[in-house]
C-alpha cells in the first residue's frame, strides 16, 4: 500500500524562492547557451561576428550532405557502445570481487577510485604515451610479441586506444555505484538461494543482477552521456580524430569546427543535432528500459 506524502507550504512564494538558485544556474548555464546555439545555427558569420547573414536551415542541410558527418554517427555509436559495455562489465566484475574482500578492502577501493580524479585530457595523454609507436612501453612490449602497434595509421588501433582511455577513467565511477548497489542487497536472499542449491553463477544472474538493475540503468544513462560528451578531450589529445576521420566522434567534430575552423554556424548546428540525439536516447531509455528495472 503506497502512502502519498505531500509537503504543504503555507506561503505561495516559498517553494519558488527555494528553487530559484537552482533555476538560475540552469537558466544561465543551460538554457541561455542552448538558445544561443539554436540562434547561431541558422546564421552564417565570419569569425569575428562583423558580418552576419541569416541562412535558415542551410547549415543543417550541409551536415546531411557531408558523408563524413554521417560516418561520424557510426563512429560515435560504435565508440559509445564499446565504452558503455566495457565500462559497465569491467566495473561490475571488479565490484563483485571487491565485495567479497574483507581485509584491505579500503586499499582496493581507493586504488580503483583514483582514475576518476584524472582529467580527461590527462588520461588521453597518459595512454598516448604508453602506446606511442616509437617510445611507448606498451607498444614496445607488443612489438616484442610480434604485434605491430601503430595507432597513427591503423584505424582499429586508434579506436582501441581511445576506448581504453575512456573506459579506464569511467570504470572507477561505475565501480563505486555497483559496489554500493551490491552491498545494499540483503544477504538473506542470496543465502536462501544457496540453501536451495543454486550455484554462484546462477545466484548472480537470477538474484543479484536483477536487484542491481536500478544501478545498472542509471549507470547506462550516465555512461552514454559520458561517451557522447565528456570524451572529446581524450580524442583531442590522443588521436585528433585520426587516422583519416576514423575516431572523429560527433562532439570532437563539433569542437573542431567551432574552435579550430571557426565555423560557428556549422558547429552550432552540430551541437543542436547532438542535443536532440542525447535527449532522444534518454527519453527512450526512461520509457522502455526503465520498465524492466525492478525497484
Amino acid at each position, binding site marked *: 500500500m503506497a502512502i502519498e506524502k505531500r509537503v504543504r507550504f503555507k506561503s505561495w512564494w516559498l517553494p519558488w524562492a527555494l528553487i530559484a538558485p537552482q533555476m538560475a544556474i540552469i537558466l544561465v548555464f543551460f538554457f541561455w547557451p542552448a538558445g544561443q546555439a539554436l540562434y547561431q545555427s541558422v546564421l552564417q558569420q565570419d*569569425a569575428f561576428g*562583423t558580418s552576419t547573414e541569416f541562412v535558415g536551415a542551410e547549415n543543417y542541410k550541409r551536415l546531411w550532405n557531408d558523408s563524413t558527418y554521417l560516418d561520424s554517427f557510426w563512429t560515435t555509436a560504435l565508440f559509445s557502445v564499446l565504452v558503455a559495455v566495457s565500462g559497465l562489465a569491467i566495473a561490475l566484475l571488479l565490484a563483485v570481487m571487491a565485495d567479497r574482500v574483507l581485509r584491505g578492502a579500503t586499499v582496493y577501493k581507493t586504488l580503483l577510485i583514483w582514475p576518476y580524479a584524472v582529467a580527461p585530457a590527462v588520461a588521453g595523454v597518459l595512454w598516448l604515451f604508453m602506446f606511442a609507436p616509437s617510445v611507448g612501453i606498451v607498444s614496445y612490449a607488443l612489438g616484442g610479441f610480434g604485434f605491430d602497434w601503430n595507432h597513427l595509421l591503423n584505424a582499429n588501433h586508434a579506436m582501441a586506444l581511445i576506448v581504453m582511455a575512456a573506459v579506464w577513467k569511467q570504470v572507477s565511477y561505475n565501480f563505486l555505484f555497483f559496489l554500493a548497489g551490491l552491498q545494499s542487497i540483503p544477504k538473506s536472499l542470496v543465502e536462501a538461494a544457496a540453501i536451495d542449491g543454486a550455484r554462484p553463477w546462477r545466484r548472480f544472474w537470477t538474484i543479484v543482477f536483477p536487484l542491481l538493475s536500478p544501478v545498472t540503468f542509471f549507470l547506462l544513462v550516465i555512461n552514454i552521456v559520458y561517451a557522447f560528451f565528456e570524451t572529446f578531450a581524450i580524442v583531442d589529445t590522443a588521436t585528433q580524430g585520426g587516422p583519416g576521420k576514423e575516431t572523429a566522434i560527433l562532439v570532437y567534430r563539433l569542437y573542431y*569546427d567551432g574552435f579550430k575552423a*571557426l565555423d560557428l554556424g556549422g558547429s552550432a548546428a552540430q551541437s543542436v543535432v547532438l542535443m536532440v540525439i542525447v535527449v532522444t536516447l534518454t527519453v527512450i531509455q526512461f520509457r522502455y528500459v526503465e520498465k524492466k528495472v525492478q525497484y
Partner: protein
Amino acid sequence: MKRKLLAVSATALALSMAAPAQAQTEIQWWHAMPTALGEWVNDLAKDFNASQKDYKVVPTYKGSYDESMTAAIAAFRSGNAPHILQVFEVGTATMMASKGAIVPVGKVMADAGQKFDPKIYVPAVAGYYTAPNGQMLSFPFNSSTPVFHYNKDAFKAAGLDPESPPKTWPEVALAAAKLKASGHKCPFTSSWGSWTQLESFSAWHNVEFATKGNGMRGTDARLSFNSPLHVRHIENLANMSKQGLFVYKGRGNAADATFYSGECAMATGSSALYGSIKRNAKFASGISTLPYYPDAPGAPQNTVIGGASLWVMSGRKPEEYKGVAAFFNYLSQPEVAAKSHQRTGYLPVTIPSFELTDKSGFYKQNPGTDVSVTQMIRKTTDKSRGIRLGNFVQIRTIVDEELEQIWNGKKTAKEGLDSAVNRGNEQLERFEKANKA
C-alpha cells in the same frame, strides 16, 4: 563613529594610491609563442619600452595559435580586443575576410606618419600578407620555411657522405634505401604534411597549389594539388612508406621530436626547428634545401612560409595606433630584425637585416642557418608568392586525413588527392559564398 572614520580614510588612501601614473599609452599584444620564443617576445617588448617613454607594449601569452585566435574573437565580440594579435599564416584569409575587425598595417603606418617602405621586406614573406592592391595587411613577424634536416652520423654509418646530402627526391629514396640496409628503422619522415609535401612542394616546383595564383587573386580559387606531378610525388612517398623507407610519425610537428631524438635519419620540417636540434640532438646534424624533381621545369623556385604575422585589431584610439606603428617600426630596424633572426631561426623579415647578418659572419659560424634564407630570398613568380585560401585550417586537416589514408594503403595516391581536392573545394566554395559582399 571612530570605526566609520577609519574606514573612510582607509578607502580614500587606497583609492589615491591605486590611481596609476597615466603617462604611457598601453598597447596590448596577444601572442602564441611558448617557452624560449616567449622569452624572445618579452625581450622585444622590454627593449622597445626602454627605448622610448610614450608607449608601453604589454605582451600576453594566450596559448597556441588557434587558442589565441579564439580568445581574440571572444574579446572582440565583447569590445575588449587587444591592439596586436599574432595570427598563424593559415588564418590570413579569415582575418582578411573579417573586414570590420582589423586595420591594415599599411593604413596604420600611413595614419601615424611613420616612414614605411614595403619593398625592404623579403618578397616571399611580405607577399603572403599583402593585398592584391599592394597594401600590406599584416606585419610579417615570425616566418619559417621547410628545409631538409639530416643526421650526419647516421649517414656515415650507412656509408653515405655526410657532407653531400641528397638534393633530389630520387636521391632521397636511394639514401633511405641505404640507411634501411644499414639497419636504420626510420630513414625518412616529415612533419606538417600539407605544408611540406604539397604547399611548399608546389611553390618549389613552380606549380600551383590552388588556382588564381594560389588564391591570391580571388576567392573563386580552387585547389589543384592533384596534378600529375603531385600525384607522382605522393605515390613515390606511398611506395617508400610501403617499403619502410618513409615512416609517418603523426600530424603537425609530431615528427620533429623523432628527428632530434635520433630515431629518424632524415626529416623535412620547419627551419625554426634549428634551435631545438642544437639543444637536444646528440649527433652531428645538417640542413639542406628541400628536395625536388630534377625533371620538373622551373624547379627549384622558392618555398612557402609558415609561422605567423601580427594583425592590428580595430576599435582602438588613434593615439594607441600611433604606438603600434612605432613598435612595428622598431621591429623592422636592421639590428633588431637581425638579432631576432639569429636568435630564433625564423627568417629575417627585411633584406637589410639579412645583409647585416651575412656581413657579421653569422652564417659561416653556424652552417645551415642560411639554407632557409637562400630558399626564400629569390624573385617570386605568380605561382610561388604565397597561398591565401579561406577555411585553410579545415583544408589542412582534410589533407592530413587523406594523406593518412594513402599512407596506410586504404586509398591510392590519386584517389586520396582527388578526394582531398573535392572536399577542400567545398570549403572554398563555402568561404566564397560567405564573403560575397
